[in-house]
């Protein structure tokens, strides 16, 4: 079935159609949630809760919607933000990162360590943007809606972030 037809069926309450649309998005969403939360249980919770919210809200999608991906990832990102907002989240969130960084590294991984530290210093939304672009390989046309900003703003932000990650990169390399 054509994706638009699946979306239309899901909007009409067809659970099987919604499942067919959702299944391929679960692992990318989990990866994104883990990148923000650094905790398996929390990331799973974020995806589970986002899936429920998506199912309950699928009727509100525009009729011409071709893919659930940016919409669903935006819901997952919101769930991650909600989890992070809990009072103790900042304590929990980085629990694994210092330990990972403290592991002995081979000399040729020193650059990776710098990059790891630089990524760790990013805000969660900045890290999310990096993840969407570099790991999920999403186009700016989808990154923008996921972050609730315009594609142009997403592109500009990624440029600034990338310069912080690797100042030696040429401008042309990050603007393509």
């Amino acid at each position, binding site marked *: 079935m054509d994706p638009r037809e699946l979306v239309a069926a899901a909007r009409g309450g067809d659970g099987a159609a919604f499942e067919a649309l959702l299944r391929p998005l679960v692992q990318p969403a989990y990866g994104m949630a883990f990148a923000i939360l650094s905790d*398996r*249980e929390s990331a799973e919770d974020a995806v589970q809760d986002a899936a429920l919210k998506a199912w309950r809200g699928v009727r509100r999608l525009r009729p011409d919607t071709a893919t659930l991906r940016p919409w669903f990832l935006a819901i997952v990102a919101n769930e991650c933000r909600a989890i992070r907002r809990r009072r103790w989240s900042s*304590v*929990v969130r980085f629990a694994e*990162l210092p330990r*990972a960084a403290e592991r002995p590294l081979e000399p040729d991984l020193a*650059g990776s360590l710098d990059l790891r530290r630089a*990524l760790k210093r990013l805000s969660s939304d900045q890290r999310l943007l990096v993840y969407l672009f*570099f790991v999920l390989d999403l186009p700016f046309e989808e990154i923008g809606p996921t972050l609730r900003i315009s594609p142009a703003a997403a592109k500009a932000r990624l440029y600034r972030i990338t310069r912080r990650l690797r100042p030696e990169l040429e401008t042309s*390399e990050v603007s393509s």
Partner: protein
Amino acid sequence: MTDRLTAEIRSVFESGFVPSPGLADRVVGRLREDTGRRHRLPWMAAAVVLAGLVIIPLAGLALSARLGLFAGLGTQREDRKDAAEIQGPAVSLGAVSPAGPWLIVRDIHQEAGPPRPTHNVLYSSADNGRTWSERLRFDGVYDGMSFSRDGLTGVIWAIDVTPAGCTAQSGHSYTCPNPASYGLTVYATPDRGLHWAQREQTPWGVAHVSFEGEEGWVISTSVKDGFRGSAVYQTADAGSSWERMGALPAGVRSNSYAFGVDASPLRFTDSAHGWFASRQVAQPGHSGLWVTSDGGRTWHEASVPSPAGHEGDDMVVERPSFFNNHQALLPVSLRRHGGADNATPNLLYAYSSADGGATWVTPRPLLGAEAARFQPVGEQWSGFFLDASHWWVTSTGLTAGDGVQAAPAVARSTDGGTSWQIYRPSPRILVMRFSDGEHGWAADVSGPQNTNGLLRTSDGGAHWVRVKLPARGG
């Protein structure tokens, strides 16, 4: 974009990644459950609305008084306008046995309708809280749980606090001509919690319960007599039979009515030796800590003079903790007038005993030099003393709006209180239980509605991870 940077960034994200195999199936499965549940929603919504009383299980006497549950003799009146301070279901951390953690999920909140029995489900987990198995369903207000040291035998008990014959009055009020019985029902397991046997409800009401394995003690109460009466009963067979041992002196009662948060003021170390903390503000010559050395037949008041410099402060003596046959710790909370509110202590002290709790000496600030950095932030402070070395202290407030919920912290000592680490901010923890120096569990409240939850730590309380609660069965 350079391939090299992309590869490096992907490598960084992947280096700490923990995959979640089968997540799509679980997500879809939950969606299908939700779809079915939505079809049942009107019935379930009605059930939720009708289910559960009760703030009193968690909040204790202060909130109970707000609800008016103890007002009047023979007639109990409940006003639900204040009852939104804790939202259910509530979660109690019952025990951590060698088999793993035990969790009680309770319906405690009722939007409308007269008081009804509180429904509880007992769960256990053998995989660090990832999955939960239902072990027992029971009614009444969950009060406590205890396992033998080897985890083979155990008990869980509940108290019937539901008044009968209630009729609606104007607004959200109900008049209940028949007060709750406060009868005690014990459930016992002989096989590590796989099976539970229900004992008969006691014909007398209970105020406080303490179990050590299958041996238990109760301080009874008479509801019809205005919660007076302090007879002491003892069981040696997990509640199958009870023997009246004696009574506390006339007029000795406890201020503590907080169920389900490990706040019983009663503690026995063996068949003869017991302690009862009345938690009344101490007066000169009256500590409020009562002691028996003959199994509850006779009681005398322990001598616990105020720490030097705190003679004018309000002092409340808490339940002692015992590390072995000789060493013990007695916490006291002190409140200087003019504190955050009239329920929050300003300072915690600890007395020590080297003679099995016969005498209490050398009071010192419980958190030593760190005391100034750790102030209790609410009326619910919780200490867990695993052994003579490993101690934890935290506190929180359940009383919304009193300005006492800021900056909760967990304090931890690994050298018997000589030095402390302060972990802040922390969850608002009600009760903690540790199985060793690093691994522990806690029940907490969060958010303005005091939503109840469960946490675990694997680094002594420095970091806590929220545990997914079991979904309540229908």
